[in-house]
């Protein structure tokens, strides 16, 4: 009897979606769910019109408006004329091609990677793509989810398929339980700092271990979200009871007999015991500390209690030059403590950390305290649904009583396209995912951290260890 080769979760999802496999060409891979937003799609629809072809399966594409939407109001005009044009074009395109849109004014609108899971559209075993690199977020549900460019958006619209080479398997074992005040964000920042921003290139991560098992779905999404910051194509977590508990009862999750049938399929979605990983790494989760970035890419981060590294200690000349340039850009001096660095702006939001548990965590620090004079603190929920949920729990009052700004949902200062941005030279502590030069505004200086660490910075006006503010 032929033995069946043990497969990883990634192998299994891949195998079940290959439409055509031929040697010398990439595979044609079927895409179950296509998420779209206003910024990376107009040119794809224009392409369809030029070719005179339609959308193959309009029911498999879902749209929202998030990147350029204003957060000070629900009126697009407040984000400027280009935002009006982009959103207007999205509305036109969705209407013309019969695509469901969670547009301005919709109570389920929000950041594309927040609403997919919240609606129950994101399900184990699916292939999910979006013209956005943080599509990896959906991998938290055991879905193969990755970002694509606009040309590929057109391919999916036209054919519901993509040409794709299979990636390698990279197993990441988070071993042990987090200590209080340390979060999923710190786990993923630690991983990226260890393997580097290109450490996952050509690979798909599978996150596993007791540290992952113990996380809720919001935390798991934070981890998968930043897979791309280590260069990986996607990040996956096998579904378990936590996953099913989150999904059950959501708008588009199956119910009744369909749920039972789905559970049967989902229960096979885990890596076989002897499955082969091309690479593996283990992170001791129990010893993790709160992390914060000090440089201009997400691998340039460190434990919050440490000091700005000295580039002189780096032997590779290119790396050394890069570190010198990064510290100059960030206005940091080698050897200084990361703690106590002055902070101008605090941003709590983005598809990395804008979900209800993130907001609850932040609120636990803001409660009965005041934002430091001179600090601008922005709290931007990931979706209108989360916004409503937070308000029903009274979290918005905690934020506004503290002097923080409570906004409408959207990408906001994660990318600075809607007017929410840093001024030149300003330093932020931000719960988003990219600290690239200018990401949050021209010459803005971003320090990435968890919602707890960001909230602590808002209260003290400087980089602070959140554990000093947590009740014990």
């Amino acid at each position: 009897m032929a033995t069946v080769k043990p497969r990883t979760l990634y192998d299994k999802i891949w195998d079940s979606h290959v439409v055509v496999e031929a040697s010398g060409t990439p595979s044609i891979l079927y895409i179950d769910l296509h998420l779209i937003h206003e910024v990376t799609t107009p040119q794809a629809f224009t392409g369809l019109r030029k070719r005179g072809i339609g959308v193959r399966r309009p029911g498999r594409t879902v749209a929202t408006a998030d990147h350029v939407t204003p957060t000070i109001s629900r009126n697009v005009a407040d984000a400027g004329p280009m935002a009006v044009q982009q959103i207007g074009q999205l509305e036109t395109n969705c209407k013309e091609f019969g695509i469901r849109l969670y547009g301005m004014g919709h109570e389920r609108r929000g950041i594309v990677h927040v609403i997919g899971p919240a609606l129950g559209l994101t399900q184990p075993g699916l292939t999910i793509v979006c013209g956005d690199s943080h599509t990896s977020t959906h991998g938290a549900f055991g879905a193969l989810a990755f970002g694509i460019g606009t040309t590929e958006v057109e391919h999916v619209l036209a054919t519901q398929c993509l040409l794709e080479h299979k990636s390698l398997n990279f197993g990441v074992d988070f071993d042990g339980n987090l200590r209080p005040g340390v979060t999923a964000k710190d786990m993923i920042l630690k991983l990226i700092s260890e393997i580097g921003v290109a450490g996952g290139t050509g690979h798909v991560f599978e996150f596993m271990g007791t540290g992952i098992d113990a996380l809720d779905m919001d935390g798991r999404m934070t981890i998968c979200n930043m897979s791309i910051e280590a260069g990986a194509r996607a990040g996956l977590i096998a579904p378990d009871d936590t996953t099913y508990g989150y999904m059950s009862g959501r708008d588009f999750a199956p119910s009744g007999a369909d749920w039972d049938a789905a559970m049967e399929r989902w229960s096979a979605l885990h890596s076989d015991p002897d499955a082969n990983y091309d690479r593996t790494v283990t992170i001791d989760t129990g010893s993790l500390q709160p992390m914060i970035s000090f440089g201009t890419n997400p691998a340039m981060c460190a434990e919050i209690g440490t000091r700005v590294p000295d580039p002189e200690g780096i032997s590779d000349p290119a790396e050394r030059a890069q570190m010198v340039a990064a510290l100059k850009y960030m206005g940091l001096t080698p050897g200084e403590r990361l703690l106590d660095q002055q902070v101008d702006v605090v941003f709590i939001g983005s598809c990395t950390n804008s979900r209800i548990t993130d907001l609850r965590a932040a609120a636990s620090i803001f409660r009965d305290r005041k934002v430091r004079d001179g600090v601008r603190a922005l709290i931007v929920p990931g979706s209108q649904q989360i916004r409503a949920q937070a308000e029903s729990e009274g979290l918005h009052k905690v934020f506004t009583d503290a002097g923080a700004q409570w906004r409408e949902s959207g990408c906001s200062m994660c990318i600075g396209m809607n007017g929410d941005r840093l001024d030149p030279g300003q330093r932020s502590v931000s719960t988003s995912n990219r600290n690239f030069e200018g990401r949050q505004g021209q010459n803005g200086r971003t320090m990435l951290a968890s919602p707890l660490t960001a909230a602590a910075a808002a209260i003290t006006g400087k980089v602070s260890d959140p554990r000093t503010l947590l009740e014990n």
Partner: protein
Amino acid sequence: MKKFEILVSPASCLDRDDIDTDQIIPARFLRTTERTGLGKNLFEDWRFDGSGNPKPDFVLNRPGTADAHVLIGGRNFGCGSSREHAVWSLMDFGVWVVIARSFADIFKKNSLRNGLLPIPVDAANHAACLEAAEAGARFRIDLQAQTVTAAGVSFGFDVDPFARTCLLDGVDDLEYILKHDDRIAEFEKQHS
């Protein structure tokens, strides 16, 4: 897509690692619904100061840059955001080949989909390319033969064979997928 066969051109050097797509084209220029016209904002914040004046020491502001259709980068070129605008702005500026130590996955795919050729190179050839480019050498990129030659430079490079065929023939891969329409329909029948 335009056919790519042989390119002969001087090269510009931007030897930095991890050049991310936010640097190639900052997000504020993505508020467009077109693919064209993005070249003027390529590397905007490295090319221009806060008041929009060119920074004279930045390589793409040097005289003669407009004729250089080859750009030489460092490691992990094009990391970060999936924005295809990065490729569009490079091409609109006139960059048709990027030679780098390595590329980020999505950038590489986006490049090949648009006819921009990413050429990965090892450390020794990378150093030779930089030296030749600084000396003003003309680079000859031959996709059919998969070779790069310039004064003191001669090496073969890897490119995905399927993408190579598409580039050489000037056809895009949507046509290829569309040809398999019946297979897709068949797949959909048994796929829930």
